[in-house]
């Protein structure tokens, strides 16, 4: 009591100098606090700015990829060309000269076949080289069309597309321009008649690889990525969660488990290309799994995701309040029952978050896939994970190295598709976490 009184007396009788010093201190402290808050705000602002710049660049460059210039051509599906014998043999019909049909249709639209060979070539180059496939697919899908004249939207050539989208400047000199004056005149005519239109580019999602941008798509890459995600889910989640539960709940704490723990943490930081090398050595060379197959990609990515899932799961398990475990033990639950009935359900949101972060990482990974030969020009859609496939980020990488104008926008467009996919996965993570988060 006496001490307290002395202290209060002391406080009330501070000398003027002490009071001044104290108020200065206080001001300094408040200024430091303000400064710190400002640094934080500035950091967030700079981060947001970079994000906005990134997104505007990607979207600005990428959105034209979702539109594809097409030409409405009335094609005469001449039985003489397609099926001269009339036996409707699919194999023979596949080999017919559909390019000729397309060109004849185009001549009709543009007022006759040019006499000059050079002009003919220019006119042919208005259409994509992939139009024969478009007509062929339409005929094979419905052979009753043979002999009729039907309107079909045919892809325009990549350069035509680029000119309409403004990527090629029509004011440059004719000699140095990829699209010549004559072609521009035809294009203007078609555009005026609403026969040359930019339409939504479904092909971007469905077409396989192609050397022409207008017929190149992400079809194979999407299937490959899908297979790999499924393989990662099936392998990495059960193995990762089981390993984490064992290490966290059952394993004795000794030197061996310490070493294991350190190694798992280190594995999470191993460069992903190393996992690719491992996949090449073990899965392809040793186990003889098919090169470029999405099974190998899935296995490699699963290995890469495991440490992330194990670490996240262990953290989630550790975060479950010990009082819940005690409560369960207290009513006579065994260790297994305690973990499966109480701890895991409570850790579930954390496990989900970690898992989805791991999968998002895996989906965006390119380097290990380069090592196992998934950088490939794949034109056949894979139906099983054993067949050659590519993946989204690898496809982006390959398009980014292509020279044609159209691939620039497609690279950005594919990046948008990848980002959208990752965004959806992240949103799913947030949703699941919210849904299963329970307070205790």
């Amino acid at each position: 009591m006496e001490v307290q009184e002395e202290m209060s007396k002391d406080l009330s009788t501070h000398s003027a100098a002490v009071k001044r010093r104290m108020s200065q201190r206080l001001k300094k402290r408040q200024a430091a606090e303000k400064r710190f808050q400002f640094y934080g705000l500035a950091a967030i602002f700079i981060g947001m700015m970079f994000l906005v710049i990134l997104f505007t660049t990607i979207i600005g460059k990428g959105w034209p990829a979702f539109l594809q210039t097409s030409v409405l051509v009335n094609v005469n599906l001449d039985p003489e060309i397609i099926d001269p014998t009339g036996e409707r043999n699919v194999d023979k019909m596949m080999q017919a000269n559909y390019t000729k049909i397309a060109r004849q249709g185009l001549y009709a639209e543009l007022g006759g076949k040019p006499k000059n060979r050079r002009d003919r070539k220019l006119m042919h180059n208005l259409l994509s080289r992939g139009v024969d496939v478009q007509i062929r697919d339409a005929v094979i899908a419905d052979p009753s069309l043979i002999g009729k004249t039907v309107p079909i939207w045919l892809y325009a050539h990549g350069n035509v597309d680029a000119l309409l989208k403004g990527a090629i400047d029509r004011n440059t000199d004719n000699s140095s321009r990829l699209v010549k004056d004559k072609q521009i005149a035809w294009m203007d005519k078609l555009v005026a008649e609403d026969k040359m239109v930019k339409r939504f580019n479904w092909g971007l999602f469905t077409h396989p690889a192609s050397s022409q941008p207008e017929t190149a798509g992400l079809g194979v890459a999407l299937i490959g990525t899908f297979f790999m995600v499924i393989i990662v889910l099936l392998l990495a989640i059960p193995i990762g969660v089981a390993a984490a539960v064992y290490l966290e709940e059952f394993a004795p704490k000794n030197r061996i488990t310490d070493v294991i723990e350190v190694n798992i943490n280190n594995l999470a930081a191993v460069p992903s290309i190393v996992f690719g090398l491992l996949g090449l050595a073990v899965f392809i060379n040793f186990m003889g799994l098919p090169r470029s197959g999405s099974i190998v990609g899935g296995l490699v990515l699963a290995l890469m995701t495991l440490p992330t899932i194990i670490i996240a799961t262990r953290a989630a398990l550790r975060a479950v309040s010990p009082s819940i475990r005690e409560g369960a033990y207290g009513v006579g639950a065994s260790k297994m029952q305690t973990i499966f009935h109480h701890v895991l359900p409570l850790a579930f949101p954390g496990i989900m978050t970690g898992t989805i972060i791991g999968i998002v990482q895996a989906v965006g990974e390119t380097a290990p896939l380069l090592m196992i030969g998934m950088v490939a020009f794949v034109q056949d859609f894979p139906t099983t994970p054993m067949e050659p496939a590519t993946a989204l980020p690898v496809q982006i990488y390959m398009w980014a190295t292509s020279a044609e104008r159209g691939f620039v926008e497609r690279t950005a467009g594919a990046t948008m598709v990848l980002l959208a996919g990752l965004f959806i996965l992240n949103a799913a993570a947030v949703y699941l976490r919210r849904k299963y988060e329970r307070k205790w």
Partner: protein
Amino acid sequence: MVATHVVESKAPMLEQTNDLAEAETTNVEPAEKSTKITSEDVCVYYGEKQALFGIDLEIPENSVTSLIGPSGCGKSTYLRCINRMNDVIDICRVTGTIKIDGKDIYDPSLDVVELRARIGMVFQKPNPFPKSIYDNIAYGPRIHGLTSNKAELDELVENSLIKAGLWNEVKDRLSGPGTGLSGGQQQRLCIARAIATKPEVILMDEPCSALDPIATATIEELIDELRSNYTIVIVTHSMQQAARVSQRTAFFHLGKIIEEGETTQIFTNPQNEKTQDYITGRFG
């Protein structure tokens, strides 16, 4: 209704700073009871550190025994030996014998899960499972297979809640979350959960330390009612609480039992000077 009545009757008592006199009159034990739990030379080690030094204690059946003592004196450690909760801690080692009804609970042939079903436990902080009120109670009976059908389970849940004095408050929201109850209600839910596995012994580790005085009074009233059917061991920091609810008291200090005896005797006529100092508030 039961609960509110209890609150009214108990509240005035709480205002007394020292109700030892009352404890004297209400807690007189008429006759000697048979021993339920016998401890002989129980020592507990946490790694190198010894926490309990040769505890010898006999806990009589169908009565409340309180363990008091300053923080870190080993009373909770001892309590957790009785249902082998210390097994969960890797570095913990227990020597000596604890017998319940003459059977050694540290016998390797004894199943610890079965033991914990027979010995309910209530913790310091109310820890209902993040499930519905019904599932909180039904969990123990379910995992032990105590009931054979839904009707029996319903009845068991109802009985447990009635015994814990919670039925009237929650009967209309059994499917609501157990964590949505107030602190005192949650603790009574935990008691109901402990009762549901039909234990013989209930261990309580400072069950009221996180509760307000009114909820505390309700729980104390409940403990007094439960004593006719269960052997209760309670760890408490409140000397008034020990005096109010228990028939026997053991005073722990630095891992040893300093004094043990009838509650009235410990609080009115302690034999040991340390006990005297502790209960009069001179240390601890």
